[in-house]
């Protein structure tokens, strides 16, 4: 059994409610933090080496220390609960079952950053979780953890839950801020960064739900102890939402030292692939990260074991590696069609582009149309190079990373599974009859044989 820091009490009956949460040691970290100086709390988080769990993996302590503190200007903490990346559903689990863990994390973080008005921006589709959070906030308030002069420290804090309207782009931090201000959710041009001018042009920190929840164990055990868990710059524990062709889909907490192979096959985690099917590919960090074929998933290009952590997953760069991303772990078995999978993702990004920048607005739709042609037996050989060209135009030329996120899956699919695209184009009729491509990537161990 690995270390459990976030989900330790997830199975305690009634943990959603204040009394139970408090009984198993809840709000102890807050008690401790509110006695410390704000600088010391930030220092603990810095020492912990915690990296943002929202996708980019930016060191949280460093982000906090960038927050501008001009005299007389309010500052804000915003919790990013927009969780809309296909394959990612870990924040939902935390909020649904352990709402007080998030509230406690928010309280500590608000104290550290000096935010008297803190916001949770939650994905519109999580409608029922809004009620859970509001109930938890009311409970916390009744017990003196929110409101005015908390624990007699003179610190005031209110938490508001704001429900989005169901746009993936509002998970991008500056689009989220715009949306929270009541405007159209278009990402802002940076600089200025939110740390200088964020919500209502005030200094703002935006953090993911899991990041803020992790502040609780960090304060409980101390930053140094937290940093001892994990490996290298991947400290602490990480939640993974596993889905796809596995026996046990669900949310797992890992300590980032286990091999990818173990994560997929061990009974503690995904429990292997159903019906004895072989593994074909994996998208380990949510839909935006590059897909990797099985032969590059368990071992890096150098032949070393690949582990479930930031460094190891990105070993080899985009040529042979991928990314930790937001932890949406999607497994594809031998029956899955890469062309179809890529088309589905392209449709998603096409639908979710905000439409500000021309390469993303036009390019995502173009890629989707071409992929649809290939998938439905109307593709041309030149389409593959065209797709490559389009993704290259989008990658790195847009305002926000959604453009990149749309380009990478297409690039990776062509990079690793070009022959499957070719097979679709050369066998338009057959590709309509059985909806899967070439399975010679399925077995990770032997070198892929020629078709």
């Amino acid at each position, binding site marked *: 059994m690995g270390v459990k820091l976030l989900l330790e009490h997830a199975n305690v009956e009634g943990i959603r409610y204040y009394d139970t949460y408090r009984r198993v040691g809840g709000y102890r970290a807050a008690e401790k933090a509110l006695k410390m100086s704000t600088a010391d709390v930030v220092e603990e988080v810095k020492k912990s080496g915690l990296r943002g769990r929202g996708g980019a993996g930016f060191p949280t302590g460093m982000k906090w220390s960038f927050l501008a503190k001009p005299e007389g200007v309010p500052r804000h903490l915003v919790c990013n609960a927009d969780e809309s990346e296909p394959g990612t559903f870990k924040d939902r689990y935390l909020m649904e079952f352990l709402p007080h863990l998030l509230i406690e994390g928010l309280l500590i973080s608000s104290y550290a950053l000096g935010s008297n008005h803190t916001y949770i921006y939650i994905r519109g589709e999580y409608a029922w979780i809004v009620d859970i959070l509001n109930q938890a906030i009311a409970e916390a308030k009744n017990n003196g953890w929110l409101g005015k002069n908390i624990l007699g420290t003179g610190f005031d804090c209110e938490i508001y839950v704001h429900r989005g309207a169901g746009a993936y782009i509002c998970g991008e931090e500056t689009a989220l801020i715009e949306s929270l201000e009541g405007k159209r959710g278009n990402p802002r041009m940076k600089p200025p960064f939110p740390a200088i001018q964020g919500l209502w042009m005030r200094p703002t920190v935006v953090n993911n739900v899991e990041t803020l929840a992790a502040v609780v164990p960090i304060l409980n055990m101390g930053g140094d102890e937290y940093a001892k868990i994990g490996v290298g710059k991947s400290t602490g524990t990480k939640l993974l939402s596993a889905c796809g062709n596995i026996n046990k889909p669900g949310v797992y907490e890992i300590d980032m030292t286990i091999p990818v192979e173990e994560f997929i096959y061990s009974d503690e985690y995904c429990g292997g692939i159903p019906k004895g099917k072989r593994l074909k590919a994996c998208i380990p960090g949510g839909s935006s990260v590059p897909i990797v074929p099985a032969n590059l998933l368990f071992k890096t290009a150098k032949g070393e074991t690949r582990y479930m952590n930031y460094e190891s997953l990105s070993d080899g760069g985009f040529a042979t590696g991928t990314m930790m991303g937001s932890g949406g772990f999607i497994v594809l078995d031998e029956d899955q069609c890469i062309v179809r999978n890529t088309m589905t993702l392209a449709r998603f990004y096409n639908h979710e582009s905000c439409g500000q*920048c021309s390469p993303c607005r036009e390019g995502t739709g173009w890629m989707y149309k071409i992929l649809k042609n290939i998938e439905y037996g109307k593709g041309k050989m030149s389409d593959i190079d065209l797709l490559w060209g389009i993704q290259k135009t989008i990658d*790195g*030329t847009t305002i926000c990373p959604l453009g990149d996120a749309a380009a990478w899956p297409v690039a990776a699919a062509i990079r690793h599974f070009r022959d499957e695209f070719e097979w679709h184009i050369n066998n338009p009729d057959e590709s309509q009859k059985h909806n899967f491509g070439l399975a010679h990537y399925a077995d990770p161990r032997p070198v892929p044989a020629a078709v």
Partner: protein
Amino acid sequence: MSDQMFKVTIDNKTIEVPPGTTILNAARMIGPEVAPPAMCYYSKLKESGGKCRTCLVEVSKGSEKDPRPMPKLVASCRTTVMDGMEVKNFTSPKVVEARKGIVEMLLINHPLDCPVCDQAGECHLQDLSYEHGTEETRYDFNRRTFEKEDLGPYVQLHMNRCILCYRCVFTANQLTGKREHGVLERGDHAEISTLLGKSLESEFIGNIIDVCPVGALTDKTFRFKNRVWFTKPVDAHRDCPTCSGKARLWMRGEEVFRVTARKDQWGEVEDWICNTCRFEKKETKDWVVEGPSEISRASVISQGHYAGNVGTEKPQVFIDKIIGKQPKLLLDIHSISDVNKKGVTLSKIDGPAHSDDFGLKNK
């Protein structure tokens, strides 16, 4: 403050500019030979820029202090210069390549109905694709179309042509008391629209026609009346209680076909004008004429050689050379054009097409 200047080198040309200047504006100070194209940035509109991505440049040296190059191409209209910065625009193969790709993107869903578009001849998208685009498109899908929407008596919206630069939104925000149009929807179905079919009539709203880089917003009072290159631009002014009254009249003979604001070298409005000047003062007696406007020699409008002989000579219609180059854009008229109605085949119309042919004359 003012004695500290930043040195920046763009395509091997160096200039000193005050801190806070953007790369694009520094490039414009050097001159058009290094200035990146800008389809969304507008120096007179706050918050504009950053969207079209045509102004991307490569920063090969960040600054004197931190000489590292920037990892990605940056939008020159929204990136401020640092002391000692070195920028590559036309000298960077990466920029030229990326720009080609972006121009292609801007064109894939554009109707390319230039032959029936009032903006033709003064369209920034035409210039952009001519200068920075490729000859052919690789796009072979149906182009996106939108439902028609009526914006009232002054402004004609052709959403199919819009490149979503947001300039008109900023103009309405910053110039008029109340903005009544905006961008609805998102992604490639985002569109300029009003809430519940409001009509755009506020005093300065006509300016959105001038800031629109393409033919998405055109002057309803000028619609299909003439091609811009057949009309002669003259600068004129009048005593206007609402605006500066400094305008440009587009004339043929003694007839004023259209009134616009005056535009500078970069195609930007010099002084905003009010609706009265723009839409209602269409007679020479309303104006004090100053003389022919200066129009860039590169512009098709200057091909008319009007100076001194307004209305006495027939304008030259065919242009086989533009700035010494053969025109290379393939203009195909798509059936989805707003004016190209079903059942009207342009090639079957006798003589030059006229608005009568589309049954739009009285609209």
